[in-house]
């Protein structure tokens, strides 16, 4: 069977070259499609990874806005999250750590705020300030400070991303729970001659207008490295006037120890975000009130064109597989007509029909394998060319350059992923997939002609020739 297949390939040069050409073309196209699909998938994963593996549980503001009555003020809603709900999610799979946050607007008679109207921005970076601490839609007071309480400061992205750096003292950790230790900005410290070890009092009022006052102790001073002036930023919204405290301190000032503003869950891997969201939806948490966010809006905007390319590549591969299989089958059926006599001879010699089909399979398999080898050299080039064509086509569409607010503290805005930067390379995964696809095409291409072989009657074939 093998011997005959090799002989047939060598002697029927014209047919072999035709088959090789068709197979080479199909494999190159499949390879290009799969390379683009893999590259876009990798880029999407990288984008997801760059946005971190944090998922924030927050109040569903969208639902709140659509549910409120006309003219109803937002401060009439209690937009806090129950700690019991947040705890339920912290026990779910993939969660490696959790940080609860509580922001509260406070004032003090002991220190003066860093006045925003006299503070100029020196940074030229593309950072966008949207402090998580400032999300609280509390009463529209005239307080000048925000106390931002959290379980730990270690995972705060502004510190992790070095937008804020510790100047002296230390950051707060789990051991600071139930203490009145705070970390303040260097500007606030210098304006008020505060040092590590200094104390001052902050206060707020509860719903019954009772004053809640706490004396805090400065244990750390941080420096704000990058921040943009955003027109209309009040003193309270300024990172210079943010006082980081333990969660319990902020909760006390807020007047409730059973609620928080938000919870940030750090997962073991960013690829588990969707899975985490899925299992979270099955918990008893009221998802009409709360929402989970993993910078989804930024992610979706960043991967827009990549997603389109990925979809196109998948569709392209499917079309090439089906179309290629049919074209190969037609070529083989045409070739088969000229080989009817040969099959008749083999059948009259006692060759089984299955072995004749097997010989066909080997012949086509060998040619496709050779085309595959050639494609290993050219596939990457073709893939790059096609991805460049797609990239230039997508670049004709105006790019979205708006700045997107994120949930994270001073999170860096993710630019839209450039499709030209795609790493179109021949990976082991692609080679494996192309091998599978090649086998599939060979099987499709052999199937139809094989049916004709299996229906053959040697007498009819041979007697026709006998005239």
């Amino acid at each position, binding site marked *: 069977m093998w011997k005959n297949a090799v002989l047939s390939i*060598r*002697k029927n040069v014209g047919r072999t070259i035709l088959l090789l050409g068709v197979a080479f073309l199909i494999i190159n196209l499949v390879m290009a499609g799969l390379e683009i699909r893999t590259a876009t998938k990798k880029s999407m994963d990288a984008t997801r990874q760059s946005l971190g593996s944090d998922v924030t549980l927050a109040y569903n503001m969208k639902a709140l806005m659509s549910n409120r009555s006309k003219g109803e003020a937002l401060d009439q809603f209690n937009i806090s999250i129950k700690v019991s709900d947040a705890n339920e999610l912290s026990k779910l799979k993939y969660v490696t750590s959790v940080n609860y946050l509580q922001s509260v607007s406070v004032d003090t008679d002991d220190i003066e705020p860093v006045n925003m109207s006299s503070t100029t921005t020196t940074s030229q970076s593309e950072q966008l300030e949207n402090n998580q601490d400032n999300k609280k839609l509390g009463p529209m007071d005239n307080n000048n400070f925000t106390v931002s309480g959290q379980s730990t400061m270690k995972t705060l992205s502004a510190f992790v991303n070095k937008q804020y750096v510790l100047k002296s003292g230390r950051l707060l950790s789990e051991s600071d729970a139930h203490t009145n230790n705070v970390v303040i900005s260097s500007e606030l410290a210098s304006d008020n001659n505060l040092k590590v070890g200094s104390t001052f009092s902050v206060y707020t009022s509860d719903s019954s207008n009772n004053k809640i006052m706490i004396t805090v102790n400065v244990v750390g001073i941080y420096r704000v490295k990058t921040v943009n002036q955003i027109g209309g930023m009040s003193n309270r919204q300024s990172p210079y006037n943010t006082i980081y405290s333990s969660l319990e301190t902020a909760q006390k000032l807020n007047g409730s120890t059973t609620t928080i503003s938000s919870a940030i869950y750090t997962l073991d891997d960013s690829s588990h975000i969707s899975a985490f969201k899925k299992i979270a939806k099955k918990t008893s948490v009221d998802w009409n009130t709360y929402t989970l966010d993993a910078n989804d809006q930024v992610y979706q905007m960043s991967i827009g064109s990549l997603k389109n390319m990925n979809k196109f590549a998948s569709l392209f591969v499917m079309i090439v597989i089906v179309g290629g299989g049919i074209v190969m089958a037609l070529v083989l059926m045409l070739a088969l007509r000229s080989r009817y006599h*040969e099959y008749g*001879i083999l059948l009259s*010699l*006692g060759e*089984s029909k299955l072995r004749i089909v097997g010989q066909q399979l080997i012949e086509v398999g060998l040619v496709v394998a050779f085309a595959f080898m050639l494609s290993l050299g050219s596939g990457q080039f073709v893939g790059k060319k096609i991805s460049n064509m797609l990239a230039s086509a997508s670049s004709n569409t105006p790019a979205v350059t708006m700045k997107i607010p994120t949930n994270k503290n001073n999170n860096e805005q993710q630019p839209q992923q450039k499709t030209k930067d795609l790493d179109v390379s021949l990976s082991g995964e692609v080679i494996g997939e192309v091998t599978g696809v090649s086998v599939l095409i060979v099987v499709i291409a052999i199937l139809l002609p094989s049916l004709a072989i299996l229906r053959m009657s040697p007498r009819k074939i*041979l*007697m026709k020739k*006998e005239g």
Partner: protein
Amino acid sequence: MDALFQLHHLSYHYQDGGLRVDILKDCEYSFEKGKTYAIIGPSGCGKTTLLSLMGGLEAPCDGYVEYDGENIEKKGFNNYQRYDIALIFQSYNLINYMNAYQNIVCAMDIAHIKEPNKKERALKILGRLGIHEQEAKRDIRKLSGGQQQRIAIARAIAKNAQVILADEPTGNLDYATGQTIIQNFIELAHQDKRIVIVVTHDQGFARQMDVCLKIEDGKLVEV
């Protein structure tokens, strides 16, 4: 009587429109080892149909062909063709992308012939039939009709089949080459103790065979 190959009430007909055309009717015959047979008859009398039935190329409408005590249909046409018979056609039916010895080795492979050096054996058989090594390696399409027919015979010999069925084997050949082919068949039957059955319309050829059979009104009769 050493009957290896027998026809039992063999009948064949086909439908031509609404009309039934009987080709063979209740053919009965026993072929003996070591003999040559010629089957003659006018065109359209059913000679080639009979050969096809004997070769297992198609099934009879009635009756059966028996080889070595077994109905060939039950044995399986494929197995029967592979091990027990060899067919030789007027138009040689060689595989054109193979040279002479490759055609023979291919047939030996199909018949699962246990031979340490199949190529050597193929060249030896071809040599016996007057095809030299140079010719055996040449493109088959560049050989003469006589040479191609001898290669077809060599292929039949190489298979070690006990029954050789030939359909007009000298039809395309000149007289001298035809005679050589006839001598090859006679040697195969007499020396190798095989059954050689040749369908022919050539009376001269038929006379050189041990037994001459004729299809008359669909029946097979000895002349």
